[in-house]
């Protein structure tokens, strides 16, 4: 790494506070280039060194990957050993790095069959000036359009989790774009061809700390985002039923709520507040998706319990989306091995813990559904959302609850044949075959992919499931999907990368992006995996030094006012707490002292 020192770019925050939407565009145009990673300063290219292959190892593929120490771009080898998939790279300065990539070679090979690549974007926000991943914004070579755009509404947080370096006090600045700024960012995020993003996640920090969060949702809707979700711990929602109602009325589609386990030991972040938040969401008729970060040895013994919790509250919980931990910062190999868990490991544990109710075969990679997009595109000649992310990024299944029995969708839908058929028909349409003939054939064939005798009862009646597929594929009537979602739990996984398992082939296919204050769209695994070049650099440039923030906005917006203090006694004695966890955990077996200790260890003070 070169030692040249470069002044980090910054924007005069006083200008930002008063700027119009148009002003933000011109400010961004001036600063964007300075914010891009600089070769020789921020990173070097060292693709010449071939990582070795040792005895007992089977080569799978090469890729590129960043050095966890100096960010040099290295050639990396993906290989199989002992039934698992590994990644190895050698930095000329920092030596060899080896990391588990996927915990199951067989599943890796099955998932690989489902890879589809996107059509890319024809309106890049940055010119192609560097190799991936040092050119993010999106650049012209990016392969997938955004499926979900993340907007960081603030880096303030009411918690101070011990592992987090992101929140304002630790970062030393407050990043909180004004409403005009947000409108500019959202316009920029939507300025895309051939497919405009329609799904937005408002995240933080803790976005509910913003008094104008409802306005942000409204702006997002005005700017064309049809799906808006808020990513939160739910703590504020637990205490503020009005907020849930207002967010829903403004157009929020779903609350994406952190949920790391069913006990205080595994989920000290919001174990006590989740029941109250869910009740308030019920009142507001706002669905929730539970989002557990999975850490080996910490909460991986509660995976099925978390799904059971979701199923117990299926009236309001639409999904559980597991996120195997991404290891941030420099962590020694031994320590990494203690906490590292991959998608197949998580899948295997769910199979064990559910005693086979959800099996390994029930999971499919995200791009599995791409043939549906191809088919509808070929019929309508309109660009559809294509989930062309890398096959190793995520997995999903749907669970149906049928009189207490859990039925994964794969038990009654032949996913492989169905998707294969749609792909074949899409290709026929592309070749110019008469669309009415294809539609007729498809209609007649739909029933062949469904085994109604094994489907949940409500989908069996009057061949509801086949009719639903017909409505979606043939009539493009998506309203019937609402029925599909009733009593259905989406269970997904998304393994965000870190510098140890970093694979540039995944970055190039990423479809979850962050819109930055200068209007770029940065893939999740660049934004958060190389924060010094993306997240932190751009947010610091547009941030307000912490002391200035307090001076500007007063004590009311200082951490002493908004940091959360938990009254555990009150929370565990409430009826919603018992009602939500009953049948999932033995509530009375947890001593009060354990509750308090768990919260304090995590960094959340307890008051009585």
């Amino acid at each position, binding site marked *: 790494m070169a030692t040249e020192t470069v002044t980090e770019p910054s924007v005069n925050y006083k200008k930002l506070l008063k700027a119009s939407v148009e002003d933000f565009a011109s400010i961004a145009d001036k600063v964007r280039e300075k914010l891009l990673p600089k070769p020789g300063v921020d990173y070097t290219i060292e693709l010449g060194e071939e990582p070795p292959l040792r005895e007992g190892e089977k080569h799978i*593929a090469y890729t590129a990957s960043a050095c966890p120490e100096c960010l040099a771009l290295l050639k990396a080898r993906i290989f199989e050993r002992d039934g698992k998939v590994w990644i190895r790279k050698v930095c000329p300065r920092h030596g060899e790095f080896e990391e588990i990539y996927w915990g199951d070679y067989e599943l890796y090979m099955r998932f690989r069959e489902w890879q589809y*690549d996107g059509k890319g974007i024809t309106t890049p926000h940055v010119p*192609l000036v560097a190799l991936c991943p040092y050119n993010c914004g999106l650049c*012209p070579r990016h392969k997938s359009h955004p499926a979900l755009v993340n907007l960081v509404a603030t880096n303030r947080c009411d918690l101070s989790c011990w592992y987090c370096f992101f929140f304002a006090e630790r970062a030393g600045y407050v990043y909180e774009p004004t409403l005009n700024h947000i409108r500019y960012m959202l316009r920029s995020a939507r300025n895309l061809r051939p497919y405009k993003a329609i799904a937005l996640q408002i995240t933080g920090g803790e976005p509910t700390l913003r008094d104008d969060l409802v306005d942000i949702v409204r702006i997002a809707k005005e700017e064309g985002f049809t799906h808006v979700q808020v990513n939160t711990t739910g703590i504020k929602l637990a205490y503020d039923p009005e907020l849930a109602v207002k967010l829903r009325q403004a157009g929020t589609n779903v609350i994406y709520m952190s949920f790391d386990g069913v006990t205080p030991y595994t989920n000290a972040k919001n174990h006590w507040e989740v029941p109250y938040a869910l009740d308030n969401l019920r009142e507001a008729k706002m669905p929730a998706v539970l989002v557990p970060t999975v850490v080996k040895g910490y909460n991986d013994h509660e995976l099925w319990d978390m799904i059971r919790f979701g199923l117990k509250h299926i009236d309001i919980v639409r999904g559980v989306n597991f996120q195997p931990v991404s290891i941030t910062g420099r962590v020694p190999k031994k320590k990494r091995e203690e906490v590292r868990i991959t998608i197949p490991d998580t899948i295997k544990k769910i199979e064990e813990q559910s005693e086979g109710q959800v099996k390994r075969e029930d999971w499919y990679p995200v791009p599995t559904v791409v043939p549906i997009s191809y088919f509808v595109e070929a019929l309508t000649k309109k660009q559809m959302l294509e989930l062309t992310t890398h*096959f190793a990024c995520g997995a999903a299944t749907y669970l149906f609850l049928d009189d207490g029995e859990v039925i994964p969708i794969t038990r009654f839908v032949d996913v492989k044949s169905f998707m294969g058929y749609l792909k074949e028909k899409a290709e026929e349409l592309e070749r110019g075959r008469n669309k009415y003939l294809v539609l007729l054939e498809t209609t007649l064939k739909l029933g062949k992919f469904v085994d109604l005798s094994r489907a949940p009862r409500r989908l069996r009646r009057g061949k509801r499931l086949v009719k639903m597929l017909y409505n979606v594929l043939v009539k493009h009537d998506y309203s019937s999907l609402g029925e599909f979602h009733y009593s259905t739990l989406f269970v997904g996984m998304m393994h965000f990368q870190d510098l140890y398992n970093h694979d540039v*082939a995944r970055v*190039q296919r990423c479809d979850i992006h962050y819109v930055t204050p200068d209007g770029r769209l940065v893939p999740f695994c660049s934004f958060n995996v190389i924060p010094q070049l993306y997240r932190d650099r751009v947010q610091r440039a547009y941030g307000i030094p912490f002391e200035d923030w307090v001076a500007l906005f007063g004590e009311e917006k200082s951490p002493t006012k908004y940091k959360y203090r938990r009254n555990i006694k009150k929370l565990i004695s409430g009826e919603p707490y018992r009602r939500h966890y009953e049948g999932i955990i033995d509530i009375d077996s947890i001593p009060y002292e354990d509750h308090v200790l768990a919260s304090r260890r995590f960094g959340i003070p307890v008051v009585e």
Partner: protein
Amino acid sequence: MAKFYSIFFYMSTSTPRRRKVRAESEVYCLSGEKLEKLSPTGEKALTHEYALLFDEKFGDTLHITYVDLISGEYEGRVYEYEVPPRCEKLIEVVKTREEEGSVLLVYKVAEDSVRKLESRRILGLGEVSAGLKIDSEILKSLIRH
């Protein structure tokens, strides 16, 4: 004299996706309404030093990046051209063998540099001849050549 580089490659990959692609280029000099095919003056192995050039040419057209290329088996050569001062534009036609169609890349030549103007996939020469105001028969004969 400005330099220009074209790339020949063949790749066969399976991770993350199966692809077998062969691509070779022809480079034409456009001056006025005259097109003339250029011959390379040098040839080198395609190494990572040309990774960015590779991405510039094929990242947004064939949706193939250097990382895709090296992921599996591949061969690659880089051809160097000396651009005659009379050239106003360079046209690079990349013929691919994977699916139908070619890629057309157009560059503007200034003193000592060559700047990419546009890139697109083409199925027929009609759109190209219209865009460049060159008789499509001339283009056809050159490209067939």
